[in-house]
C-alpha cells in the first residue's frame, strides 16, 4: 500500500498513514527511512509535483490528485504519464485526473510540471493496493412512517450499475430521535451489487410511537469487493431525513388501542401542548420521560393481562385528560380436543376446547374458521353470546353429499397470532345417534313383543347397532344387542322374543352404528305386560294325611305357599280361586295326586344331622325301586301337626340333596323326612332330625337332691325341653365343692380349680348321680349344666349339707369322759394317800388378811405397766390368788376370764349388746365412767362388787386423774384408748380435739362423733353419767363388731357417723 514517489532521485515514502497495515518489521524500517527521507523531501518538495493520491468510487476509474510544486502558479500545465505497455500521457491544467482503473501490478506514473522556468518531473509507482475505494455517499430516496405500527420505512438506491463487478455492500443506517438527535439505533444491512441499480427497503419498528418525537434517519455504505485489493472505506453519511407528526390541538396518547402480548414492554407517549402532570396505567402511576416540547412518554415493562375492557393508560394534563386503552393478552392457543361427529349423518358437529384463555374479548377475541380440505367449504364460528362456558366451542358443518372422509382444519386467529388444528374423520364411523323417541311396545304373542321407535337421521346406507334393555321385576336386567339396517324414514321396528308370559317387563333402547362410536342416550322406559299363555306344567305339590287320618292336606307351591285341606269323606270340594288366577290348575292336580298313597315303615330309626352354613346335606343310598323321585319335606319339630314348612323334589337318580331355606334358623330343631316315590305311592325312607347350626342350651337342667347321707348325695335331674336345648344334647357337667351358700361361689368353673370336682356325664340317658366320699355335716355346692356341640348351657346350682356322722360323735364324747373318770379316780387315790404332803404344800397356814398388801402390791405392779397394752394385764392375775382368801370383798379369780383374748366382753353396762361375741382383750374404760357414779362409791350391793372388781383390774389405765397428768407430755406416739376423756363434758371436746391433733394414734371411732351423731338421743344431752351410754362399754376402744351390724334396735347404731365407721370396718370375711 505504500506509494512510492519515484524520480531519478531516490524515491521516498509519501504517506506514512498507510504504513499501518504493513508488517511490524516493515513499519519500523519504514519509520526510520521516513525520518531520513522527510527531511530530504522537504528540501525537494517544492520543486517537483508530490503527494499523489488515488481513490476510486466505482472501481472503474481512479481519481488521482497530487500537489503541484510550490513555485508553480495557477494554471500551470502538467503532464501526467502512465508508463505501461503503451505510454499514455495527459496534459492538463489541474492537479487531478481521472484515469481508467489500471491493471494489477505496479505502474509508473510520471508527472511533469511544465513551468515557465523549466520542468520538474516526479515519478510515482502506482498500484491498486494504493487505491482507496470510497463509495459515493448514498442518498435516501424516501423515508416514510407508518404511525399506526410505529414503523419507519427507508428506501434508497444502491447505484449498483456503477460497479462493474459483483460486490457485497454493507449499509449502515442510523436512527436519531428528538431534536437533539439522540442516536437510538445503529443497524447494518447487507446487500449485494449485481451491476444494476437497485432500490432497497429497510423497515424499523420504533419502541416509541413515531408521533411522539421527530425521528431522523441517515445511511452510509461500505463496498466489500473481494477482487479489489486496495483500501476500502465507508462512504460519508447521507443527509438525514426525518419523520415527524403534526400534533393536533387536543392532546393525544399513542399508541391507540394497541393489542400486545402479555409480558412485553411498551412505551406510551402523550403529545400535548400543555404540561402533563402525571401518567398512570390502570391505577399505577408511572414516571414521565420527557420528550421534545411538552411531550412525555412512559415505559411499561412486562405488562400483565388486561381486564375485559382493556387496561387504561391515562395522562393527566391541567384541565384535561387524555389516554388510551391497551389490550394485553395471548395469541390463540392451539384448539384442543378437536372432535367431529354427527348425530344424523346430515350435519357434522365439530367441537374443541380453545385452550388457554387469550385475555382478549369482544372484537379482539379469537375468531375460528373451520375449513374442510376436500370440498373447500368452510364455516366461521359465530359468537352468538358470551357464554358462561368458554371451555367448549362447537361448529356445525353441513355434510357434503356422497362424501364420507372429511379433512377439517380449524383456524384460530386473534390480533396477536394464529394457530390451527387438523382432524381427518370418516364420518360414518363417528355417529352419535340422537336419543330414540316414540318408543313403543306391541305384543306378538305371550313370549314376544315388537319394539318400535323413531331415530332421526340418514342412516340408509349403514347398519345400526341397538341395545335393548329388558328388565323384569325382581330380576337382573338383560341386555340384547341387535343390528338393524338403517332406513330413510327413521322408523325402526324389531321383535323381541324369549320373554315370559304374563310378566311385566320394562324395555328401553339405545342405538349406535355398527362401526361403534358412541351409544345414544337411553330412550324412555316402557313398561309392558306380556300376554298370558297356557301353563306348561302344574305347580309343585305335596299332600299328606292329617294326624287324625280324617283329612287329606294338599300343599302346592305357586307364587306363595298354599295349604288346602280336603275332607276325606268328600270326593270334591269348592273354593273360590277367582282372585287367584295362578291356581286354576289345582283340580287337575288332584287327579294326579290322589292315586298315590304313603307307605310308612314303622321300624324307621330317627337319625341326627347337623347342617353346614345355611343348609343341611342329606344323603341316602340309591334305591332302584324308587322310580319317580324323592321328596324331602321338613318342618319345625316344635310345631304341632300337621307340620310342614316346605318340601323339595329330587330326581330319582340322586343320592343327596342340600336343603336350604331362608326359613332355617340356627338352634331350631327341624324334622326332615325323605320319601321315595314308587308307582304305588310315596314311602317314608328316612326320618332325620337336625339343626342348621347347633347352639348352646339356654336353660340349665332342673335337678333335685334325692337322698343325702353323711358321705354321699344322690342327685336327680330332668330333661331339657327341645326348644331350649337348641342342639343335640351331648352330656352334662356336674361340679361340686365344699362351700356355704353365702361364701362359696363357683365363679370360674372353667378354670379348673383343684377344689372343684367335676363329673362329665356323657350318657344323656342317665338322670341321676350319686356323689360319694363326702364329709359329714358339710355344706356342698352343687352345679349342673348341660352342653351341646354349640356350647355350654347355663348352670344351676344348689347347696346341700351332708348328714352328721353319729357314731363318731358318740365315740368322741365317750373317750374323753372315760379318760376324765380314770384320771379323777387315779387322782383321788393319789390325793388320799398323799393328803398330808398336799396339805403342807398347798394349804400352809393362812396369814392374817389384815396384813395383806396384796391390793397395793397389785396396784403398783399394774401402775408399772401402765404404758403397756391392756393385753398385758394378765400378769396381774396371779396376785388375785391371794385375794381368794377374802372372797367377801373381791370376786373370784375366774373373773380374769374377762380379759382373756377369747373372752367375751361383760354385758353389765348395756343390755343393748347381746351379741358381743367377738374377741376383745380387755374391758373398756367406759367402765371407768361408772366409777364417778355415786352409786359406785357406796361399795354396797353385789353389782357394785363387780364394778369394783373391774375397776381394780383396770385402775392403772383407767384412772382419769393419772391420765391427765400424762396427757400434756404425751402428745405423740401411741395413745391408748384410755386417753380419751370420755368422762369429760361436751364442752371439753373442743379442747380434746387439740390434743387429738397432736396424737399419733387415734381411736378408730371418733369420740366426738359419737357424742354428736346422736344428738337426738335423750341421753346424749343428759348428765355425765349418761355419756357413758352413747356406746357400748366395749365400743370405745374396740375396733369392730362391738355393736352388731344388724342390731338396728341399738340406738348407738343409728348414728350416721357410727354407721360410716361400721361400714368400713365391718367387712365380710375380715
Amino acid at each position: 500500500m505504500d506509494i512510492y514517489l519515484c524520480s531519478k532521485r531516490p524515491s521516498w515514502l509519501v504517506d506514512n498513514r498507510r504504513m499501518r497495515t504493513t508488517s511490524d518489521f516493515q513499519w519500523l524500517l519504514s519509520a526510520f527511512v521516513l525520518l531520513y527521507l522527510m527531511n530530504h523531501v522537504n528540501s525537494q518538495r517544492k520543486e517537483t509535483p508530490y503527494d499523489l493520491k488515488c481513490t476510486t468510487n466505482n472501481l472503474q476509474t481512479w481519481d488521482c490528485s497530487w500537489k503541484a510544486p510550490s513555485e508553480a502558479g495557477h494554471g500551470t500545465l502538467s503532464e501526467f504519464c502512465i508508463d505501461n505497455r503503451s505510454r499514455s500521457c495527459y496534459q492538463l491544467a489541474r492537479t487531478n485526473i481521472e484515469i481508467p482503473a489500471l491493471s494489477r501490478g505496479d505502474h509508473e506514473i510520471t508527472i511533469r510540471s511544465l513551468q515557465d522556468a523549466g520542468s520538474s518531473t516526479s515519478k510515482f509507482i502506482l498500484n491498486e493496493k494504493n487505491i482507496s475505494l470510497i463509495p459515493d455517499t448514498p442518498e435516501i430516496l424516501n423515508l416514510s412512517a407508518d404511525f399506526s405500527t410505529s414503523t419507519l420505512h427507508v428506501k434508497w438506491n444502491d447505484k449498483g450499475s456503477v460497479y462493474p463487478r459483483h460486490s457485497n455492500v454493507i449499509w449502515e443506517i442510523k436512527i436519531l430521535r428528538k431534536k437533539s438527535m439522540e442516536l437510538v439505533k445503529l443497524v447494518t444491512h447487507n446487500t449485494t451489487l449485481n451491476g444494476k441499480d437497485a432500490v432497497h427497503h429497510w423497515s424499523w419498528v420504533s419502541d416509541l410511537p413515531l408521533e411522539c418525537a421527530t425521528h431522523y434517519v441517515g445511511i452510509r455504505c461500505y463496498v466489500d469487493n473481494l477482487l479489489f485489493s486496495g483500501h476500502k472505506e465507508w462512504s460519508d453519511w447521507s443527509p438525514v431525513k426525518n419523520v415527524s407528526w403534526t400534533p393536533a390541538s387536543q392532546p393525544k396518547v399513542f399508541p391507540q388501542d394497541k393489542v400486545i402480548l402479555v409480558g412485553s414492554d411498551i412505551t406510551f407517549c402523550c403529545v400535548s401542548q400543555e404540561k402533563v402532570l402525571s401518567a398512570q396505567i390502570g391505577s399505577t402511576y408511572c414516571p414521565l420521560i420527557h420528550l421534545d416540547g411538552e411531550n412525555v412518554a412512559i415505559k411499561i415493562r412486562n405488562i400483565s393481562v388486561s381486564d375485559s375492557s382493556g387496561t387504561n393508560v391515562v395522562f393527566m394534563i391541567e384541565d384535561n385528560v387524555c389516554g388510551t386503552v391497551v389490550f394485553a393478552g395471548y395469541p390463540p392457543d392451539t384448539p384442543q380436543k378437536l372432535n367431529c361427529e354427527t348425530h344424523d349423518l346430515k350435519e357434522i358437529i365439530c367441537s374443541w376446547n380453545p385452550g388457554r384463555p387469550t385475555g382478549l374479548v369482544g372484537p379482539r377475541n379469537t375468531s375460528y374458521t373451520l375449513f374442510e380440505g376436500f370440498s373447500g367449504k368452510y364455516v366461521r364460528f359465530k359468537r352468538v353470546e358470551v357464554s358462561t362456558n368458554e371451555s367448549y366451542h362447537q361448529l356445525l358443518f353441513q355434510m357434503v353429499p356422497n362424501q364420507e372422509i372429511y379433512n377439517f382444519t380449524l383456524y384460530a386467529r386473534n390480533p396477536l397470532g394464529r394457530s390451527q388444528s387438523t382432524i381427518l374423520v370418516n364420518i360414518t364411523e363417528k355417529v352419535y345417534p340422537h336419543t330414540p323417541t316414540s318408543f313403543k311396545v306391541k305384543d306378538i304373542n305371550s313370549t314376544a313383543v315388537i319394539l318400535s321407535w323413531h331415530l332421526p337421521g340418514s342412516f340408509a346406507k349403514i347398519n345400526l347397532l341397538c341395545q335393548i334393555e329388558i328388565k323384569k321385576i325382581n330380576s337382573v336386567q338383560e341386555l340384547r344387542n341387535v343390528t338393524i339396517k338403517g332406513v330413510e324414514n327413521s322408523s325402526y321396528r324389531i321383535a323381541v322374543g324369549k320373554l315370559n308370559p304374563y310378566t311385566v317387563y320394562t324395555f328401553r333402547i339405545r342405538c349406535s352404528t355398527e362401526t361403534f362410536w358412541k351409544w345414544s342416550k337411553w330412550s324412555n322406559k316402557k313398561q309392558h305386560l306380556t300376554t298370558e299363555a297356557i301353563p306348561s306344567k302344574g305347580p309343585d305339590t305335596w299332600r299328606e294325611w292329617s294326624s287324625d287320618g280324617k283329612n287329606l292336606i294338599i300343599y302346592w307351591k305357586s307364587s306363595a305357599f298354599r295349604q288346602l285341606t280336603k275332607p276325606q269323606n268328600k270326593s270334591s270340594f269348592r273354593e273360590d280361586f277367582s282372585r287367584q288366577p295362578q291356581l286354576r290348575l289345582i283340580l287337575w292336580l288332584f287327579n294326579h295326586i290322589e292315586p298315590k298313597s304313603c307307605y310308612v315303615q314303622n321300624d324307621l330309626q330317627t337319625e341326627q344331622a347337623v347342617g353346614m352354613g345355611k343348609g343341611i346335606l342329606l344323603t341316602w343310598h340309591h334305591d332302584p325301586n324308587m322310580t319317580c323321585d324323592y321328596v324331602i319335606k321338613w318342618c319345625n319339630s316344635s310345631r304341632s301337626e300337621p307340620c310342614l314348612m316346605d318340601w323339595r323334589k329330587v330326581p330319582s337318580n340322586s343320592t343327596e340333596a342340600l336343603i336350604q331355606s331362608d326359613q332355617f334358623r340356627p338352634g331350631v330343631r327341624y324334622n326332615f323326612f325323605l320319601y321315595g316315590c314308587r308307582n304305588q305311592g310315596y314311602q317314608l325312607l328316612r326320618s332325620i332330625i337336625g339343626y342348621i347350626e347347633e347352639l348352646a342350651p339356654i336353660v340349665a337342667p332342673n335337678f333335685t337332691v334325692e337322698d343325702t347321707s353323711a358321705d354321699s348325695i344322690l342327685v336327680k335331674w330332668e330333661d331339657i325341653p327341645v326348644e331350649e336345648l337348641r342342639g343335640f344334647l351331648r352330656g352334662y357337667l356336674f361340679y361340686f365343692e365344699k362351700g356355704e351358700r353365702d361364701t362359696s361361689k363357683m365363679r370360674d368353673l372353667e378354670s379348673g380349680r383343684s377344689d372343684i370336682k367335676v363329673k362329665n356325664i356323657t350318657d344323656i340317658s342317665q338322670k341321676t348321680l350319686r356323689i360319694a366320699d363326702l364329709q359329714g355335716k358339710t355344706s356342698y355346692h352343687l352345679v349342673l349344666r348341660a352342653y351341646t356341640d354349640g356350647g355350654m348351657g347355663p348352670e344351676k346350682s344348689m347347696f346341700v349339707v351332708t348328714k352328721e356322722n353319729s357314731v363318731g360323735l358318740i365315740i368322741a364324747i365317750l373317750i374323753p369322759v372315760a379318760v376324765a373318770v380314770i384320771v379323777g379316780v387315779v387322782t383321788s387315790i393319789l390325793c388320799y394317800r398323799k393328803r398330808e404332803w398336799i396339805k403342807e404344800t398347798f394349804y400352809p397356814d393362812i396369814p392374817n388378811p389384815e396384813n395383806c398388801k396384796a391390793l397395793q402390791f397389785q396396784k403398783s405392779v399394774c401402775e408399772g405397766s401402765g404404758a403397756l397394752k391392756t393385753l398385758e394385764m394378765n400378769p396381774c392375775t396371779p396376785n388375785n390368788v391371794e385375794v381368794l382368801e377374802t372372797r367377801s370383798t373381791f370376786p373370784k379369780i375366774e373373773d380374769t376370764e374377762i380379759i382373756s383374748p377369747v373372752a367375751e366382753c361383760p354385758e353389765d353396762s348395756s343390755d343393748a349388746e347381746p351379741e358381743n361375741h367377738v374377741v376383745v382383750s380387755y374391758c373398756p374404760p367406759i367402765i371407768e365412767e361408772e366409777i364417778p357414779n355415786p352409786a359406785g362409791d357406796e361399795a354396797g350391793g353385789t353389782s357394785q362388787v363387780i364394778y369394783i372388781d373391774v375397776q381394780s383390774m383396770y385402775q392403772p389405765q383407767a384412772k382419769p386423774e393419772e391420765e391427765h397428768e400424762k396427757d400434756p407430755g404425751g402428745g405423740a406416739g401411741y395413745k391408748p384408748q384410755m386417753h380419751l376423756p370420755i368422762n369429760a363434758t361436751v364442752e371439753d371436746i373442743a379442747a380434746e380435739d387439740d390434743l387429738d391433733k397432736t396424737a399419733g394414734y387415734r381411736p378408730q371411732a371418733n369420740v366426738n362423733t359419737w357424742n354428736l351423731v346422736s344428738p337426738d338421743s335423750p341421753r346424749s344431752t343428759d348428765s355425765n353419767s349418761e355419756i357413758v351410754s352413747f356406746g357400748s362399754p366395749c365400743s370405745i376402744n374396740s375396733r369392730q363388731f362391738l355393736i352388731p351390724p344388724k342390731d338396728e334396735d341399738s340406738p348407738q347404731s343409728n348414728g350416721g357417723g357410727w354407721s360410716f365407721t361400721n361400714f368400713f370396718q365391718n367387712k365380710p370375711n375380715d
Partner: protein
Amino acid sequence: MDMSWDSWGMLACLCTVLWHLPAVPALNRTGDPGPGPSIQKTYDLTRYLEHQLRSLAGTYLNYLGPPFNEPDFNPPRLGADTLPRATVNLEVWRSLNDKLRLTQNYEAYSHLLCYLRGLNRQAATAELRRSLAHFCTSLQGLLGSIAGVMATLGYPLPQPLPGTEPTWTPGPAHSDFLQKMDDFWLLKELQTWLWRSAKDFNRLKKKMQPPAAAVTLHLEAHGF
C-alpha cells in the same frame, strides 16, 4: 248536659262531613283523576331509576377499569357533545314552562336510551348486558310515563327531525379510550338527568296538586 251537647255537635259535624264526602274530587273514583297520579308515578319511577342506576354505574365503572371507577376521577367532557346536557342555569330552569320542561325530559331520555342500547351491544360480559338491558327497560318505562303525563296535560310529543336520530356508531376514529369516556359521561348525564327529572316532576306534582286538598281543608275549617 255539656257533654251531651258536645256529642250532638260532633255527630252533626260527622254527618256534614259524610254529606260532603261524595263531593271531594279525590275520592270520586268515577271522575277523571287528572294528571296527578301519573305525575306521581313518573316521579316514583324516576327515583327508582336513580337507585337502579347507582347499582348499574358501580358495575359498569368497574368494568371500565381504573381510573374510571376511582371516586375522584373527574375528566373533562371529551367527545361526548352529542349527549343531552342536563345541567342548566337555575334561572333558565325556573323560567321553563311545563311543556318545555317535559319536552326536554322526553327528548333527553330518548337520546340517552338510544345511547344506552348502544352501550349494551358493546358490553363484553353477559352480566353487564343483563344489567344494561334491565335498566333500558326501566328507562323505556320512564319514557312512556313522561309521554303519558304529556298526553294527560295535552302536550304533543316532540317529533325527532329526520336524520337527527342519535345513533351509536363505534367508528374507527373513536378510540376505545374516548368510548370509555363517552360511557362514563353517559352514566354521569343519566344520573344528572334523573336528578333533574325528579326535581321537575316534584315541582310539577306540586303545581298540579288537585283542589281536593283545598276542599278537605275547607271541610276541616267548616267542621271545627
